């Protein structure tokens, strides 16, 4: 099972690897989304709390 | 108007309400029993309407409990609703139906008040003669009085009213105030929000100011 054969996937390389590529994208997107959301929320809350501290 | 002399009691303990994650009020408690009036005051947006909707059982309180005769109103459901009548900002009047039909419907959906006919109710709000007029053709004040006439055709002990005097002229306000004082005099209960100074004679009034 050489590396070259592995990537060839018995001639179905296009289908197999495109499926796995899409799977990778979907899974990574699902992991990254909450992280970005959390960061955005923290920035928002921090700015709001600074503004409140300045007013009080 | 009940006149049956039965003593009922609405008790709220530790009520809290959050709207669009802004806390309108917290830890609000009061006891309202037969013959008493709960007067809610406070500037716009202080949660008066939300509190009334909590009392109607239309919305779950975010904190605390509301009991009717010791039982949680959400557990009672329709059994609690037989005791109350609600008139909100919207009149709840169908414009395509006549005044008579509107009251006939309201009577059928609630516990009917057998000793007040629809005609009596219309007479008390001075809408007799308009009974076969489609509600669409009534003035705003007349429609408001028609909505309030709904209270008379049902056997509700607790009237929950949100700004009942809006769009009423001075004559209308006088009529409605006599209805309220009769209701309270006969052992009924009233929970009302109003910017207008409500004259209810010597009825025992509990005032709650929500904007404090």
């Amino acid at each position, binding site marked *: 099972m050489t590396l070259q054969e592995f990537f060839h996937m018995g001639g179905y390389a296009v289908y197999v690897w495109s499926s796995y590529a899409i799977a990778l994208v979907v899974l990574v997107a699902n992991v990254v989304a909450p992280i970005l959301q959390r960061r955005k*929320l923290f920035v928002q809350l921090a700015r709001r709390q600074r503004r409140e501290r300045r007013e009080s | 108007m009940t006149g049956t002399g039965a003593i009922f009691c609405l008790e709220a303990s530790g009520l809290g309400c959050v709207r669009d994650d802004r806390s309108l009020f917290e830890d609000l408690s009061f006891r309202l029993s037969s013959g008493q009036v709960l007067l809610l005051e406070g500037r716009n947006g202080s949660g008066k309407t939300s509190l009334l909707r909590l009392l109607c059982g239309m919305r779950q309180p975010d904190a605390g409990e509301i009991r009717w005769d010791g039982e949680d109103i959400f557990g009672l459901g329709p059994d609690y609703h037989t005791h109350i009548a609600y008139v909100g900002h919207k009149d709840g009047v169908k414009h395509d139906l006549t005044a008579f039909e509107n009251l006939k419907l309201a009577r059928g959906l609630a516990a009917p008040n057998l000793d007040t006919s629809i005609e009596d109710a219309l007479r008390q709000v001075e809408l007799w003669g308009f009974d076969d007029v489609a509600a669409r053709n009534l003035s705003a004040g007349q429609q408001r009085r028609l909505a309030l006439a709904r209270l008379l055709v049902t056997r509700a002990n607790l009237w929950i009213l949100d700004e009942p005097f809006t769009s009423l002229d001075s004559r209308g306000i006088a009529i409605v105030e006599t209805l309220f004082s009769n209701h309270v005099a006969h052992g009924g209960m009233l929970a009302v929000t109003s910017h207008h100074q409500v004259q209810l004679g010597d009825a025992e009034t509990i005032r709650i100011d929500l904007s404090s």
Partner: protein
Amino acid sequence: MLRFFHQLGSPKHFYRIAGRWIPWLAAACAALMLIGLYQGMVVAPPDYQQGDSYRIMFIHVPSAWMSLFIYIVMAVAGAIGLIWHMKLAEVIAISSAPIGASFTFLALVTGSIWGKPMWGAWWVWDARLTSELILLFLYLGVMALYSAVEDKRTAARATAILAIVGVVNIPIIHYSVEWWNTLHQGPTVTKFGAPSIDLRMLIPLLVMAVAFKLFYATVVLMRARVEVLQRERNAQWVRELVDIS
């Protein structure tokens, strides 16, 4: 035990506990996924009929399972949130919807790609793929409803109702699509399932299925934490958290 649930019920504790679990879940998921992929892509023999194209199965089948599993979890969590007013259940239900939709989409895409070499068409009105497509619409309906309602507590409760109605309809829809498929598919009924399961193919499939479940657990906790922060943003513990971060 009750104290644990009660403790978990409070958002602050949930935030902390979930925070501690996520790294472990993520590590376990990654490990299992690597093992599963290695076994599936390297160790497992090619299929006598489909050659190596069947290896798409190792992500298509688990994600199809997950799409249904997550919808059921969403409906159950929604029901718990509705009946016992547990804020946490609502948060879990809502956080699950996008993940479920992603798995459904993934199952659809990999399914049609897998179908291409076998039937020469990108889309086949196969019973399972059609059911999967309808399931995607159900997910999109849930997510659209949640974003349409302004007050997030009301939105969560409305979507819980929709999820419950959806979960009741899923078997009905699946049965009617199967029935429809046998009527129209006629003689060329192709068994779209995995080929005769050789043990060396089954093991990676199950390993990947478990890996996907761990993936779901990790990501749903991550999303739930952000949702909790969003809902509790006026609470004191969130303010402190924001200050120190």
